[in-house]
């Protein structure tokens, strides 16, 4: 029969420990889990992104009750443990007693509240759990908050509230922010960044008392010098204390924390403990990485395997968007220590390495932390750095003279370099996992746990994927855009809107891009996001576009181009056909009828493009945009005009839609179809937007696909009039333009946000109207024929070589 295990406290440490234990041997123990909070375990590290709105609570849940129950764990959530009897080996909860063979205490820590006068007023909270986070989120714009404590947690709280429009003052007793992790110079840069975000920082500030209003609610914080900082909420983020009461009552040895040995066993051989409640070799623990190490060790101890917990050097990163800092090791000045410092004031970059003898013992970086993992590795391994000392500060990419390339930086890391600090995963484990078939970030997370906690190493993990898999690795959705940033497409879109970033430079600088001006992956996406969100402020950048969109024609495998004039709704005239025929002859083009009811002219030389466009313009035709992430074609059938089954004028509706939508840029291409009856000759039911006419009106379907995936459209709405059909279609396209990830077709986007959300949003007549207005505003800028502009001689010459040195040579 399985032995009985009781675990007190469902937190990150105990959750991870149970994962290890159950993975290794699901039948070893009969497990009961007590938790005073009425819920399972969420990733506390990620409360700050929840606060700033970059994540939701649902996204940070790691183990809910269902997770535990699926694994046979009996959950007693919402029930406090009142006593432990280590003699009889019984734990007593509020609802009854239970015997154990082994007991694990994981009661975590309590936030430290400074006993200032007024600390018990309403509106004075610590920053510890979801309730605290929610209190801060609820504050919102126009309110004021004071944060006491300029450490990691305090600053994340301050930045999160500021991002929500709250006015924030940070009060810090020391001379500079995060003094345990940063030196003064980096502290200064951090302070400057925060000040730019509108946060007021008061250093060397002593709090005297918290002042109350008439209702017993906090009104202001008063400092030693008499200054009053008015506030609606006061957050104390000054540290944590191990929660040891239960351990103490049970008669275990307790100092600052519950004392454990290297095997995570307390002074009682059948009671183990881990997490923020323990003390090991005189140290207590607040960061997650050592807790996860403890979880591994404790699980092994329970299984009778040998494992020892060893304290390691821990690196720090701040999860505040736009404040990129890194610190590791010891950076105090001292006898026999030398500094290497690099500063770039223009970029707000500061790097300092601290050497003792031939070894790196500390690193502090601000503004550019791409090489943090490499430095951290050098510190931990006590590598001799004498030979690379001159170029050390420029990072691994410069060792051996190669260029600065993020891939090279990762490729240069040794196999035992730690990539994921939270979970203690090194590069070699990740490479092995990739070589064993983990082909994307999700699979690497699942098999190694790398980047599965705080996520700041996501970019690194992806670079390892890229370096290991080469071209086979395409960064998928909801992961970082590319190696230039750790942010996902969704993050970038949200931040462009919320921070009102209106230029590429603003995006690179404010979102901490690691490259000078992005790469071929991120720049087209950022260019689209900017022009979609700020049509009047941002100017489209052709150099951030793929060749086809820059040259307004499709490049073919031999370097020639194809040219396709627009035929509205697939209708044409003898004059247009004659002009196309003449152009085909004149420029020796191959003609092909396309699936979208157009005629394609293939094999046109680049130099000839302006001329053929000019000729087609003359005949009244404009670009068919067969090359864009934008509106492609509206395919129609002949409808009630000709067809004996036609119920509505599908051709007319198709033409009207095409005339409204053409020229608009979208996250990916958009194809429409309008069929005049349910026989569906225009194949509307596999289009991005497909309208099927019926006797009573128009059935609008969206999110179809007929490419890599084949998928029938889903019904968005049925409307009685043509005008409403156009309004719904335009609003849908605009919603897609404003929200989708670059290179997601509508069907992929709808799958992510849910058709219900799309329906709900568009069902609101005012919202629908607003979307249509925003679309029309954008069209006022972008609906113009790119061919006509480029057929002008002064622009056309750019399609010719800059110089021809072969002519002179022949003379």
């Amino acid at each position: 029969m399985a032995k009985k295990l009781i675990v007190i406290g469902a937190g990150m440490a105990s959750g991870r420990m149970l994962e290890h234990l159950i993975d290794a041997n699901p039948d070893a123990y009969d497990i009961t889990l007590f938790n005073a909070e009425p819920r399972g375990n969420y990733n506390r590290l990620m409360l700050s992104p929840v606060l700033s709105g970059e994540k939701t609570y649902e996204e940070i849940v790691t183990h809910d009750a269902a997770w535990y129950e699926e694994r046979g764990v009996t959950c007693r959530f919402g029930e406090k443990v009142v006593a432990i009897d280590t003699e009889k080996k019984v734990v007593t909860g509020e609802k009854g007693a239970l015997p154990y063979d082994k007991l694990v205490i994981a009661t975590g820590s309590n936030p430290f509240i400074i006993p200032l006068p007024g600390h018990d007023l309403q509106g004075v909270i610590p920053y510890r759990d979801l309730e605290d986070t929610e209190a801060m989120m609820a504050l919102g714009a126009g309110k004021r908050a004071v944060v006491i404590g300029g450490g990691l947690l305090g600053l994340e709280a301050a930045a999160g509230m500021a991002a929500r429009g709250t006015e924030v003052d940070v009060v810090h007793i020391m001379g500079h922010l995060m003094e345990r992790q940063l030196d003064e110079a980096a502290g200064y840069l951090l302070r400057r960044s925060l000040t730019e975000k509108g946060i007021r920082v008061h250093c060397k500030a002593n709090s005297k008392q918290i002042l109350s209003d008439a209702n017993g609610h906090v009104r202001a914080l008063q400092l030693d010098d008499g200054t009053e900082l008015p506030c609606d909420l006061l957050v104390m983020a000054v540290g944590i204390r191990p929660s040891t009461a239960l351990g103490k009552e049970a008669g275990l040895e307790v100092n600052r924390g519950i004392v454990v040995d290297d095997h995570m066993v307390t002074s009682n051989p059948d009671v183990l403990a881990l997490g923020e409640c323990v003390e090991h070799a005189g140290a207590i623990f607040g960061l997650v990485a050592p807790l996860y190490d403890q979880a591994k060790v404790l699980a092994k101890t329970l299984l009778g395997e040998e494992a020892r917990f060893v304290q390691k050097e821990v690196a720090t990163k701040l999860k505040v968007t736009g404040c990129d800092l890194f610190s590791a090791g010891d950076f105090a000045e001292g006898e026999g220590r030398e500094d290497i410092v690099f500063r770039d004031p223009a970029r707000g970059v500061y790097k300092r390495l601290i050497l003792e003898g031939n070894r790196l013992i500390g690193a502090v970086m601000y503004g550019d932390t791409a090489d943090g993992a490499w430095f951290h590795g050098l510190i931990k391994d006590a590598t001799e750095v004498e030979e690379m000392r001159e170029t050390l500060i420029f990072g691994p990419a410069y060792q051996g003279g190669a260029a600065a390339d993020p891939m090279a930086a990762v490729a240069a890391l040794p196999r035992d370099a730690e990539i994921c600090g939270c979970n203690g995963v090194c590069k070699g484990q990740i490479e092995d996992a990739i070589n064993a078939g983990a082909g994307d970030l999700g699979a690497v997370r699942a098999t190694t746990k790398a980047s599965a906690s705080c996520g700041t190493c996501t970019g690194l993990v992806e670079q390892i994927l890229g370096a290991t898999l080469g071209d086979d690795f395409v960064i998928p959705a909801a992961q970082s855009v590319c190696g230039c940033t750790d942010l996902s497409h969704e993050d970038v879109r949200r931040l462009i809107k919320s921070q009102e970033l209106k230029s590429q430079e603003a995006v690179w600088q404010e979102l901490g891009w690691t490259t000078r001006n992005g790469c071929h992956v991120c720049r087209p996406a950022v260019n689209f996001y900017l022009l979609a969100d700020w049509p009047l402020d941002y100017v489209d950048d052709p150099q951030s576009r793929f060749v086809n969109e820059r040259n307004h024609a499709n490049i073919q495998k031999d370097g020639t181009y194809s040219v396709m004039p627009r035929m509205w709704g697939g209708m044409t005239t003898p004059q247009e056909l004659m002009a196309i025929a003449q152009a085909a002859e004149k420029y020796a083009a191959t003609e092909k009828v396309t699936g979208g009811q157009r005629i394609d002219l293939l094999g046109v030389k680049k130099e000839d493009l302006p001329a053929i466009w000019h000729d087609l313009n003359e005949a009244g035709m404009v670009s068919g945009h067969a090359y864009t992430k934008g509106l492609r074609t509206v395919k129609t059938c002949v409808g009630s005009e000709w067809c004996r089954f036609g119920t509505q004028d599908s051709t007319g509706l198709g033409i009207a839609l095409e005339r409204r939508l053409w020229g608009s840029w979208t996250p990916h291409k958009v194809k429409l179809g309008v069929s005049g009856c349910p026989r569906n000759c225009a194949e509307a039911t596999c289009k991005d937007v497909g309208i099927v006419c019926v006797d009573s009106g128009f059935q609008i379907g969206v999110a179809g696909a007929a490419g890599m995936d084949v998928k029938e459209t889903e019904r968005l709405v049925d409307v009685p009039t043509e005008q409403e059909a156009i309004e719904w279609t335009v609003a849908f396209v605009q919603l897609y333009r404003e929200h989708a990830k670059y290179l997601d077709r509508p069907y992929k986007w709808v799958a992510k946000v849910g058709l219900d959300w799309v329906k709900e949003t568009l069902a609101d007549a005012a919202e629908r109207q607003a979307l249509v207005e925003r679309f029309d505003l954008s069209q006022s800028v972008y609906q113009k024929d790119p061919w006509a502009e480029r057929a002008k001689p002064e622009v056309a010459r750019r399609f010719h070589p800059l110089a021809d040195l072969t002519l002179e040579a022949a003379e």
Partner: protein
Amino acid sequence: MSWIDIGHIDDIPLRGARLVKTPVGCVAIFRTAEAEVFAASNACPHKAGPLSEGIVHGQKVTCPLHNWVFDLNTGEAQGADEGRIATYPVRLDGDRILLDGHAVGKRSAA
């Protein structure tokens, strides 16, 4: 070296490229920053994609056909791809772009 004036810096869009026809074939002139140019073979060693049509980022260019990335300093393909494009001496004299005629196979005019 025999420097040949091939045009004005503003003839090339910032983070863009233009072609120069030479005796050794088409050479792409890349403008990577306000006053920073590189010259390299226009043909990608993979499938001869026209590199002058690629997206220019940092001091690199991405081939428009299959996304091979080349460092314009060395001509080396980046990442897992193996290959190299020829690079040629080019410099700026004020606003003028000067390409080394010898390197692109032109005999000295003298």
